[in-house]
């Protein structure tokens, strides 16, 4: 970071003025609430507004007391499943699309890119409802489509069944957000010097061999970054489940993830009263999980992958 405006006879008012508004808003509305939530998680309340210090009792309850731990572990496991679907479906598709789009001399590349990215731009609520309609047995659109490929019998009301709801919602989310890994990896592929590809062509590699042996290793850092972004986004997810399944994340909590659990716990829903301290506890747990992932990425993955620097 350079500075040429360093020498001042008087106190540098302007630096403060430039930095203050942003820092104040950021601290007040992001950092303070976060820290305060962590503080709250160490308290318990009895619903009347009095808070008493409880130490780690909330955390212990969250993890062991069946009233809390069952939904907690259920949600955590679901989040993990949610993440796996994204990692193993969204990101490979994104990589494949990026690889195809970055091939030299591809006509219509910009058009494809612009169009494929459209779902990512729309609100999750909209996407959720559209798919709810399409997958609804009442409308019959899915059945008609499946009949085109002869798979009519395969149709089930996937969004209504306990065993398939989460996966279906995950796939809907994948459908929406494929654009992001696609774009990021596309950019990374464009950064690969063209000579390397030509050298490989002369060395006798087919397009597939070039992708597998040359391009893929060189974009591993970007893939790692996409993975951590997916991780953070998935563990923060809420909107889709809420929009399609409501705060109860049915059927029978099979689509409950940390986000919906958090919402229900701290805000309350229908019969359940809001419990701010337990809500704060859940939020802090989410924070820990995300932090763990980010730290793993920063200190292990990033370091390992720096070897591939061009």
């Amino acid at each position, binding site marked *: 970071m*350079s500075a040429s405006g360093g020498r001042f006879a008087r106190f540098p008012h302007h630096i403060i003025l430039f930095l203050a508004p942003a820092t104040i808003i950021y601290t007040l*509305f*992001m950092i303070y609430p976060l820290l305060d939530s962590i503080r709250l998680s160490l308290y318990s309340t009895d619903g009347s507004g009095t808070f008493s210090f409880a130490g780690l009792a909330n955390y212990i309850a969250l993890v062991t007391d069946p009233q809390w731990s069952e939904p907690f572990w259920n949600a955590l496991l679901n989040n993990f499943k949610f993440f796996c679907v994204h990692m193993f479906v969204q990101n490979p598709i994104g990589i494949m699309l990026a690889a195809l789009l970055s091939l030299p001399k591809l006509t219509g590349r910009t058009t494809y*890119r612009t169009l494929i990215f*459209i779902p990512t*731009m729309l609100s999750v*609520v909209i996407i959720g409802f559209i798919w709810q309609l399409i997958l609804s047995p009442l*409308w019959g659109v899915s059945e008609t489509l499946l009949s085109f490929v002869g798979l009519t019998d395969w149709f089930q009301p996937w969004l209504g069944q306990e065993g398939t709801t989460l996966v279906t919602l995950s796939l809907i989310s994948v459908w929406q957000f494929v654009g992001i890994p696609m774009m990021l990896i596309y950019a990374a592929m464009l950064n690969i010097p063209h000579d390397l590809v030509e050298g490989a062509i002369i060395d006798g590699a087919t397009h597939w061999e070039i992708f597998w042996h040359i391009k893929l290793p060189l974009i591993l850092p970007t893939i790692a970054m996409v993975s951590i972004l997916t991780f953070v986004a998935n563990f923060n997810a809420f909107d889709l489940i809420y929009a399609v399944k409501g705060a109860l994340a049915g059927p029978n909590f099979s689509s409950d993830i940390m986000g919906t659990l958090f919402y229900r716990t701290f805000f309350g829903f229908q019969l359940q009263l809001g419990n701010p301290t337990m809500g704060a506890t859940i*939020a802090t747990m*989410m924070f820990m999980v995300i932090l763990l992932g980010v730290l793993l990425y920063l200190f292990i993955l990033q370091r390992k992958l720096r070897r591939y620097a061009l």
Partner: protein
Amino acid sequence: MHKAKKTVSTLGIHIVLLTYTLIALWPIFLTIINSFKSRKAIFRSPMSLPGIDTFSLKGFIKVLVRSDFEIYFMNSIIVTVATLTLVLLLGAMAAWALSEYEFKGNKWLGLYLAIGIMIPIRLGSVSLLQLIVDMNLTNTLTALVLVYVAQSIPLAIFILSEFMQQIPKDLKEAARCDGVSEYTIFFKVILPLTRPAIATVGVFTLVPVWNDLWFPLILAPSEQTQTITLGVQQFIGQYVTDWNAVLASLTLAIVPILIIYILLSRHLIRGITAGAVK
């Protein structure tokens, strides 16, 4: 022989891309065309375009009459524009101070502000709600704006300061030699120069704010202050069996974003690809 092989593989590539594009666009297309059809037509022939006998604006009328759609829309616009303006202005100021001036703790402050990029703001919602209540800002658009600004500023500062570091030193030195105040330099020289980056920041800020469901739901759920995303969600929840209305409200929610996207897609894509390089 080689020519034929090449054509086949090019064809194959286009088939794959086209198939995926269809998969990506078809549900949206389906929604829009069916929102203009009569209820019977929606069910009988969902895949066909609205014809003369199937065309109907029933759903749209209901949406516009039964809900305060215009209000939701205005709210979304107000919140988004206000957030964008503040984020750009305050973010640019902070980015400038961080990248230009040497002062003790510059690096730490930068790091402090950058943490927010990875930490989801929603996790502090319990205390955030309490704070908004204490400030008497529940059910106000102001609350939303303040929260969104806090949410978007870290990334904005990051993008803008990287950009500002590339402004040639000579420009700044020349302005200083002219004896101009630091404020003037910032507003008259630096700010105009950052226009390309501002497009990127704008796009990264605009989309999550416009599409957000969580904070309108928690901080400003009243009828007067609902944003379009929340409004559509509530409306659909209410009229879930009225397919015309549901499809119409979805279409009304899609169209503004689609228009903005088509106008700005170049900037958006350039922004994401540029950001990826970092």
